């Protein structure tokens, strides 16, 4: 079964590309046994994530059914979700310094 992307848990709001995806492409995105088409709005390199649903700024990013960070901007469905719009919530010595 050739797939373009995979969603690991049904609660996840991001999908992971398992091929290099081209802007405008309808990505066959696997969730369990289902294939759901998602039109990607940007080139998504292999291994990178895109929003599987519309994500609002400040919302938690869920992958493996767990929180992997927080959106620093709105991420519409199909758009690249990575360091430019997601921040980590852990190991943030920079935040601790600002608070001090």
């Amino acid at each position, binding site marked *: 079964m050739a797939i373009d992307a995979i969603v690991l848990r049904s609660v996840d709001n991001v999908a992971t590309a398992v091929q290099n995806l081209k802007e405008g492409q309808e990505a066959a995105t696997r969730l369990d046994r289902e294939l759901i088409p998602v039109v990607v709005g940007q080139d998504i390199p292999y291994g990178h994530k895109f929003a599987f649903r519309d994500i609002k700024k400040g919302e938690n990013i869920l992958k493996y059914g767990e929180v992997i960070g927080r959106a620093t901007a709105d991420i519409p469905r199909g758009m690249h979700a990575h360091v430019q719009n997601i921040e980590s919530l852990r190991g*943030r*010595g920079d935040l601790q310094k600002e608070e001090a």
Partner: protein
Amino acid sequence: MEFMGYGRPDGQVGTRNFVGILSAVVCVNEVVEAIARQVQGTARFTHHQGCCQTPLDIGLVNKALIGLGKNPNLHSVIVVSLGCESTDLQGVIDGIKASGKRVEHLVVQEIGGATRTIAQGVLLAQEMVGEASKEQRKPFPISKLIMGMKCGSSDTSSGLVPNPAIGVASDLLVEAGGTSILGEVTEFIGAEHILASHAKNKEVADGILALVDRMEKRAMAVGEDIRGGQPTGGNIKGGLTTIEEKSLGAIAKAGSAPIQAVYEYGEFPEAGGLVVMDSPGREPEILTGLAAAGANVIVFATGRGAPQGFPFVPVIKITGSQTAAEKMIDHIDMNLAAVIDGDDTIPDAGKRVLDRVVSVASGEVTKAELSGYFNAMDIFMQGPVI
């Protein structure tokens, strides 16, 4: 299930049969290298520690050298000393001897310098390799395997395929009475609640959380966002966005077995079963820590293709990335990329990982051994060089 290994006096079983040449201090690395280069059947361990360090770190050096010397993949050991280092030479010798194996030592400042020590060391090593070569492999149950687990140069595929497959292999090994060691505490950050829920009791769960807290505080003390360091630049290029995401993929190596105990760096995993060991994520330090804890085989998941092995413990490189399997063919032992397309499954792939572990433990060589790419090792330090 059985493998063919070398029985040792202390009951441990080697998967290799080298004479180990260990540096007591950075200053004798070149002597150790020269002896090992000259004598087939030796394996060397060199590092950059052993002098001008805090007592805490010198203690770690002593402990790591003892653990490495006791590793069952070494038949016997030569420790090379400069003569003025902070490392406790006699303590290291006595610690290794407790395993019942032969330990010799050479002190450069007593012998006449590097050249004379190399000459003496080569002759001594030749004699010891001759003795070691009389050992024969015999069948042992796989409960005698101590499998170190590591992932490196990770990308998104690591958490999807090789790490969960290693988790299956670990479960099968533990079920058969074997031991598997999960390290890389930095890569528990953001996933520690899941690991803690696998702990066999509250004490172990608290131990896991305390380790992660200590590692995170150490990273945060620098006053910066750890991104770029963790996840690494390569991880980010590979699609991993945050340490939490990397961790959730990394801990898949733990499988589903209960975690029996938490150990310090390089400590022998007495409890058996699945255990956690304090260690950072970087290859030279964690591979050394696993070997010092007594691991006789190591499985290593990689997404982009990490090349390092270890001088005397076979390291099996496993990827779920077709790209890595092709672009890093010199270093990849197992390609599980078919799982991504749905042509293979994690449980089947995991069984094959264990089969390969058993075959490698019995003598099949890994890519890292074939290429001799395994000497840039080091010991994990906490404090500064002073």
